[in-house]
């Protein structure tokens, strides 16, 4: 039994070694973001991190919990919010652009003239979401929470 357990430990360490070496880190700022429209379009939402492979593409995904759907995104699929190229140290910093905020936080529809139709804003439910940051080449990933707050009540 001891031999079995030690073999199991060795296999586990070997398989998961890549995760133990050079862990990636990331953070989102602000960690709490209000669904205040149009204010959110002017509020920078920045994601940064380190520990990725130098010069690799880093993808920032919003992990969609069960029951939250976004047009054009298949169930079980995460949706890209931002991306960046890591620098020579493996650090990155990027921002969520207005198009991503409109499409994925507010699920906006587009007019026949191909403009966002602000009458159709349908914000995702407030709550704690996860942001998953992944290196395209290294496969390293880090998940951080992101609290989405309801829009402040209009006075």
């Amino acid at each position, binding site marked *: 039994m001891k031999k079995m357990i030690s073999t199991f430990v060795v296999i586990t360490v070997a398989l998961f070694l890549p995760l133990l070496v050079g862990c990636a880190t990331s953070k989102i700022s602000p960690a709490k973001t209000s669904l205040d429209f149009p204010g959110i379009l002017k509020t920078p939402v920045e994601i940064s991190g380190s520990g990725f492979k130098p010069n690799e593409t880093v993808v920032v995904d919003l992990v969609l919990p069960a029951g939250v759907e976004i047009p054009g995104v298949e169930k079980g699929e995460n949706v890209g*919010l931002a991306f960046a190229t890591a620098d020579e140290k493996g650090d990155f910093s990027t921002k969520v652009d207005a198009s991503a905020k409109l499409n994925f936080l507010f699920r906006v529809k587009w007019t026949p003239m191909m403009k966002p139709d602000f009458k159709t804003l349908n914000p995702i439910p407030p709550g704690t979401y996860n942001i998953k940051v992944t290196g395209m080449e290294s496969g390293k990933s880090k998940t951080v929470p992101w609290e989405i707050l309801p829009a402040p009540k209009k006075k």
Partner: protein
Amino acid sequence: MKEIKHRKTGFVAVALPVLLGLYLMLFGLTSRGECAEKAASFLCLADYTGPVAAISVPLVKGETDYFKEVNARGGINGIKINFINIDTRYNVARAVSAYRRYRKGHKVLVADFHSTPFGKALGRDTKRDKIFGLYPGDGEVQGKDLPGFNWGTTYQDSFAACLDWIIKDWKEKGTGGRPKVGYLSWDSAYGRESLRGGKEYADTLPLTLLKPEFFPVGSLDHTVYLQRLAKNGANYIFIGGVDPTPTNIMKDAYRMRITKNIQFINNSFWGPTKSVGVRMHPEKVNNVVRASFFIVGEEAEKHPAHKLWLKHRPNEPISDLTGAYYIGVALAKDFEAGLKVALKNVSYEDLDGEVLADAYKQLTGSPHREGLTGACAFSPTNHRGSMEVKFYRIENGKINRISDWVKVPDAVSMHKWD
């Protein structure tokens, strides 16, 4: 003793599958769209919504319909085509994320980027993944020898062909002097692309290229830009953007009453289109000249390939068939023709994007596009799908052809690519 044996077996039975499952989950080796049969995948990242939807939606329909035909015939040497199309919603991050997700699907050989920034963001990754990109009209693919191909003619080569057309038109009018040429397009990589090589070409011609004007994507009012160009004496104005943008520009120009004195021209393919501008505002887009690497208008409706539309889209009127549908068909035909060549050289198991890209380079002059675009120009030194455009003029609600295929100048090579 028996109990220990059972415990050992139980441990192995539970722990190892769990461990393996965790490993596969973390390292992404789980099957994603794995096909039981032999298949080659064509990944399409397209905006079904947003400013370029007027291109992407019909283009994807063309790809879908033609791939269905190929698969119904049993595929290519028994290899079925797996068409993966993703709605990227006019968002580069969404495209990058979707690419990451789907690139390791079953034999993904091609990534069709429907937006210039997608290719710019993912070019390096596609090269590493041995997947080649297909790009709209971005001359950078040719200029920087990137691992990919343009759908047809590049924006700058088409721009240069239009400048030649302007010189000819100006001479025929017998006005004398040098024509003044304005340029108005989106403030984006796409909007500026025509001038990267196009400006250098303009400098060699007897015309004056006015300071170009750029406006934010989504602008509905172009008055100030048109006023400036008109005030500076423009005789010709290039109008860029994807329909409805060119139509919106023409609505402003019509309201300003400058369409009689200024010839408006579009080198960058995307409008005014039959289904948007020409249908909704025929009098306002009247007389606009379009250069196109694919057939459009009445000519498109009459091409034998329209039967593909009729067969697969019984509930959609033929009048909805726009030229972009044929770009999709042409790209699907490229994939089919390329696979046929590649499979002469390698086995299915050895097939990858690099092998297919080499096969595309052997399609020079191949007739497989059947006149839907100009002659196929892929070669070992040319990434461009075609080096030809046709000229069309919008007249009384119709898009009429006014030239045969015209060879475009190589403006890409005139630009200094960093």
